[in-house]
């Protein structure tokens, strides 16, 4: 087996294990649908009625859908840190680290698994979106573009979360810090309102937040007539760049979660 093939096998070993768990216990996925439903049907409906948020030619209900999708993928990806701590406590991670697989492969496997979980959310959000009558692009290229953006964004936040787990090391501390990080990530982004509305300090935060770029690209692929804020090239470059840096850090730090 050549090196590339071996590394591919190692990455997908981790991803497939996560997928197998979803197959054994799909109920968990269904519980994940509640949050986007609440956001779209309650928050979205009310704020659309208020008409206080300028979203150009796009109705607010539509504007919100990619943001809510990104949010639910974000929450799932952030969960991977705590699940790594859990796997450490069960002894599973010791065995992973004992294998000859490069740490990068172990991290990438988790990142891709977060992407797969994110895609299951996408399926559900599309269904809700269509049910509540939001106009979504459902052409093959648009859906593929959306899928790539979900996987990319999930990979970014999953890797970020693994780094946090390697630093805090316990479930309790992760719970605390997870809350503290996830909410600002979500609100300091373009997920639920255009960043042009933000006060300048928040605007700066939103501009360095990868979620902003993920949501911008998602809107491009999901909403007919959406004009990107930064351009698709920038959206992708920012996320790929951030992911590369996080992957390098996470691969170095991963063994620290054991001690």
């Amino acid at each position, binding site marked *: 087996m050549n090196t590339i093939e*071996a590394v591919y*096998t190692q990455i997908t070993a981790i991803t*497939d294990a996560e997928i197998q768990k979803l197959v054994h216990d799909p109920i968990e996925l269904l519980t994940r649908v509640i949050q986007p439903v609440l956001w779209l049907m309650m928050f979205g409906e009310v704020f659309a009625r208020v008409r206080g948020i300028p979203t150009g030619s796009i109705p607010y209900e539509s504007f919100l859908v990619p943001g809510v999708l990104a949010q639910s993928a974000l929450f799932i990806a952030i969960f991977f840190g705590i699940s790594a701590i859990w796997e450490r406590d069960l*002894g599973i991670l010791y065995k992973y680290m004992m294998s000859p697989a490069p740490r990068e492969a172990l991290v990438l496997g988790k990142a891709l698994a977060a992407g797969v979980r994110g895609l299951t959310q996408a399926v559900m959000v599309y269904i809700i979106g269509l049910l509540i009558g939001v106009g979504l692009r459902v052409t093959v290229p648009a859906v593929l573009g959306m899928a790539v953006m979900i996987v990319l964004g999930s990979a970014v936040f999953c890797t970020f979360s693994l780094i946090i787990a390697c630093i805090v090391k316990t479930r309790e501390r992760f719970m605390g810090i997870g809350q503290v990080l996830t909410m600002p990530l979500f609100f300091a982004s373009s997920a639920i309102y255009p960043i042009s509305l933000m006060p300048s300090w928040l605007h700066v935060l939103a501009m360095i937040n990868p979620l902003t770029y993920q949501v911008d690209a998602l809107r491009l692929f999901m909403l007919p007539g959406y004009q990107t804020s930064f351009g698709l090239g920038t959206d992708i470059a920012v996320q790929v760049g951030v992911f590369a840096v996080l992957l390098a850090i996470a691969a170095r730090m991963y063994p620290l979660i054991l001690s």
Partner: protein
Amino acid sequence: MVSARVDDVPEVAIEVTDLTKRFGDVVAVRGVSLRVPHGIVFGLVGPNGAGKSTTVKMLTTLTPPTSGSARVAGFDVRRSPVEVRRRIGYVPQMQSADPDLTGFENLLVYARLYALPRANRRRKILDALHLMDLGDVRDRLVRHYSGGMVRRLEIAQSLLNEPRVLFMDEPTIGLDPLARHMVWERIKHLRAGLGTAIFMTTHYMDEAAELCDRVAFMSEGKIAGEESPSDIEARYGTGMMLDDLFIRYTGGNMLVEERAAAP
């Protein structure tokens, strides 16, 4: 006389020189030196806290030594950790199988992490499961396995890459007597069929006597002595048992003296 070829498999499986590990103020392992030849079962025995698990973690590249050196399967654990990992199997003291996957799926993850060729992956997994007597339960979630089954699954897992050196840290800790004997049977079976070195730790003397060709007694981070269970009586007199030596080496020698004083 035939001279040994330089590129032969190294005749020693494990060679440890002055290995030391500190955790802050705690010195868990203090200058341990050991030599383990191929093809034997070597037992590191000693009470809880003696430093056995820490020694195994250094030998399996999980934790770096503070000082000293160790070669395992011909490679230095510090300089070539990946080469060592390719050639060893490890059954940790703590359970490590994934409860949310089946036995087969657990092994598949490792077969792929070891990058075993796709063509014989399935065959090897099934062989390992059969060897550990788990063929019938391979598609059951591990959360429904008994403690003994999980242990045997972990041993199966550690065999997938056909290790030169197999490490087992307290392989029967927490198992009921029946499950223990079943694990013992499997370990003996391995030893007969494999030609690898097995390095195990235990604090049960009956286990060491049953399985090990050679034992080293560890106490407070140091090796206090080495013995071969099979010739203890020849060396120390009839009635002398591994338990007595354990006590002599690892704390007080009351029992040995009592026995000597008895008529």
